[in-house]
């Protein structure tokens, strides 16, 4: 399609520069219109410049030595894949001789006494909690006022959270209404790097 005032549109010229099909009318027009030929050359030059710059930048960041190191690392990682992990004994020096049937008789008495003490303690705990006139602990906890239905509930943070999960939860928390309310305060608080720069 030729534009209303007779020249090719930018999109057509871009398409031609990207090695797309060139119609007979476009070819004829380019044969006689130096203006469109110049515009096409500009677009082609711009594309070449941008591509070359981007490629040169990446190639400068990754010279041949770096690529070789990277390849070695990839192959090393693949070689490690599937091998069982090495188990390190802990503590290495004391784990050599496991306690066997030749343990001293006095030690057996001590273990028996400890087990008996634990059983007695557990029984005594049950007796104390189940005494008449004392509310069970579960009832005491449930009698506390419950939070309103719409109030945000605190979520327990697992100790096994990964760094990514933890940061994700922080982000979610700051996106809530409570986070917005605290933003002015946060803006007033100097950052560590600001303080250290002074």
């Amino acid at each position, binding site marked *: 399609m030729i534009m209303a005032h007779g020249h090719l549109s930018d999109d057509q010229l871009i398409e031609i520069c990207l090695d797309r099909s060139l119609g007979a009318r476009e070819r004829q027009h380019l044969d006689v219109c130096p203006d469109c030929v110049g515009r096409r050359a500009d677009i082609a030059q711009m594309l070449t410049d*941008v591509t070359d*710059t981007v490629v*040169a*930048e*990446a*190639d400068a*960041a990754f010279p041949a030595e770096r690529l070789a190191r*990277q*390849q070695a690392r990839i192959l090393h990682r693949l070689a490690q894949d599937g091998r069982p992990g090495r188990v390190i004994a802990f503590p290495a020096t004391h784990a050599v001789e496991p306690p066997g049937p030749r343990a001293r008789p006095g030690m057996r008495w001590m273990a028996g006494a400890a087990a008996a003490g634990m059983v007695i303690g557990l029984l005594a705990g049950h007796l104390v909690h189940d005494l008449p006139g004392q509310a069970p602990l579960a009832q005491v906890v449930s009698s506390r006022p419950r939070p309103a239905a719409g109030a945000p509930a605190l979520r327990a943070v697992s100790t096994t959270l990964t760094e990514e999960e933890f940061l994700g939860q922080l982000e979610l928390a700051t996106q809530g209404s409570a986070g917005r309310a605290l933003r002015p305060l946060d803006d007033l608080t100097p950052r560590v790097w600001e303080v250290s720069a002074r």
Partner: protein
Amino acid sequence: MPRTPPRRVAAPAAAGSPVQGPPLSKDSAIAADVKALVMSGARDAARERFADLVALQQRRAVRIAYQYLRDVHDADEAVQDAFVKVFTHIASYREDLPFEVWFTRILVNGCLDLRKARGRRLRWAVPMSPAGDTVSHEPIAPDPSPEARLVAAERGRQIAAAVEQLPERQRTVFTLCQVAEHSTSEVSQALGLSEATVRVHLFRAIRKLRRLLEHER
């Protein structure tokens, strides 16, 4: 400037449908070999053959990853992870699809994940010194006269800044089409977009770059 050798031109195909054509590209043929070796239990031989595939795709992969992440270490990590993931999941590789499309999809997804993670970390962590492992935008010039180098460096900076200003989707499509030299059909398969959408993004990217760079002149 050394560029990767020209590749087989993929036949036009609808998004998601396999690209038909009997002659397999070199990388696809190697990937098929690696898969066969892994399936037969010859993992050591498969790894050796995989090294050829890494050598073939590595340069293109770092260009894509670096354009996405703008950090040498992150790009290095993304490329390593992509190759390791490819080898680990080589059994699921479909030989009727070009390997490069499959690999690019894995690499781009990895880059996006890494960038997301980095964004989170930067938001919460104290930044390191501003002078990181960055690379100058100065292109490699065969004629190093001081004036020419200065002009080339300035132009390089302008171009890099203009590319940086592209919206993410346009930058991705531009990078894959122009830098990684994929066809729009391959990019549509790698990104899961229709070919028409890829072309629209590519056109918009070029138009915007043109406007930005003309303005700079």
